């Protein structure tokens, strides 16, 4: 793979940026996340987790099984603020019409 290959699609972070963070002393996925924003985007590291673990493993010569994932954060999946705020007018269930009429991206594929 090329060093410029994108690993984190949400934040457009490539292999080279991740390796630079490791060179700076980053040991874990979370360290890399804080330096590069890798895994901080809307998918919450669902796409890049194993890719980043593999880079850390190769770079540090540790078995893949020893490399942990990033810390999972509530709410795990995009959730509307209105839902959590307890506003009766909004809810996690939205109509098919408004769903197709809006461009939600992530949420409707689940």
């Amino acid at each position, binding site marked *: 793979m090329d060093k410029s290959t994108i690993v984190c699609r949400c934040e457009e972070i490539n292999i080279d940026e991740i390796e630079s963070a490791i060179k700076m002393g980053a040991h874990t996925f979370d360290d890399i996340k804080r330096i590069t924003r890798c895994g901080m985007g809307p998918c919450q590291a669902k796409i890049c987790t194993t890719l980043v673990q593999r880079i850390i493993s190769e770079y540090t010569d540790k078995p893949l099984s020893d490399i942990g994932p990033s810390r999972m954060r*509530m709410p795990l999946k995009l*959730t509307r*603020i209105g839902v959590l705020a307890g506003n009766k007018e909004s809810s996690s269930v939205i109509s098919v019409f408004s769903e197709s009429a809006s461009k939600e991206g992530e*949420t409707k594929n689940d």
Partner: protein
Amino acid sequence: MTNQYDVVVIGSGVIGSSIAYHLSESKQKEILVIDKGFPLSGTSGSTQAWVWVHNKTPSWYGELSMYSAELYPFLERKIGDVEYKRTGGIAPFFNESDREKALRLAEKQAEVGIDIEVLNREQVLEKEPALSPTIAGATYSKIDGNVNPFRLVELYIKAAKRNGAEFSFYNPVIDIDKDNGNFTITTKEGVFYAKQLILAGGPWTKGLGELLGIDIPVKQVRGQIIVTEPLAPLIKHTIGGMRQADNGEILIGYSKEEVGYDRRTTLDVIQDTAKMAVDYLPDLARANIVRCFSGIRVMPHDGFPILGEIPEIDNAFIAVMHSGITLSPLVGTLMTELLTEGETSIDLKRLRFNRFNECNV
């Protein structure tokens, strides 16, 4: 890496790394910064990072915050783009009865040169149209802003390293001894010696104090924060409670709980935070939350920074405070003056550690 240093700083958060950077500018001292983890894994990486001045009270504390905010543009020219933005700050209130308090605040802060306008509903909505029409007014000041804490700490460290300072991460301090005027600092990775020692461990400074046999009068406070998906520009100002980052995310939160070092997020506080978001900005009800996080902050018992010499231990210093992001450029500057010249350009009397002892007498 040698073992002997002029200065050892424990803690590489925004305060420890700022002190290391400012000290390293003169290139006179051999400096080592030790951290039990990796930078940004503690308080400095879990903050909204306001550079907030206007309603810090009493006014002398506001004044101190203002001096620090004034240093940010210069800091940025020296260490690089930390995404500092002087957005102006808005602190909304919902009851007309609060206007009286707002006016008193403006009057007090004006004495030290902090300009505050007390706005009515129309004036607030003109500045920030997305705010709820149910607000009664707000205090506003041009001096407030925010910064990217990740860029800030990373660039402090990079600049310090360029100036020759050394850093040791993932290296918890196990023991601190003092003999023959030298500190012996035993860590997981080995033993280091220092002529001067600075404790800058934020909420974890309490444990460092125990190694030195002193009780540091601080407690831990948890703050929980919601991060939205990237949104089109919605708010221009730093609002007491939320701010929008360069990439469009809005960070929301203003909670304080005393739960020790527990860093979990909890549904009840997140729900209240979501409620606050919608009360302030009704449009946010339709915004998606990407994640929530919480941070442990440090709170000195009287709320003000503890800065300067540690009583009865020569050459030991402390720099611990809430609002480390706001104060870091000033604290780095003042600690450098104190360590290299023995005195500071701003009187630190109110911030000294020994004020706590005096209270007990």
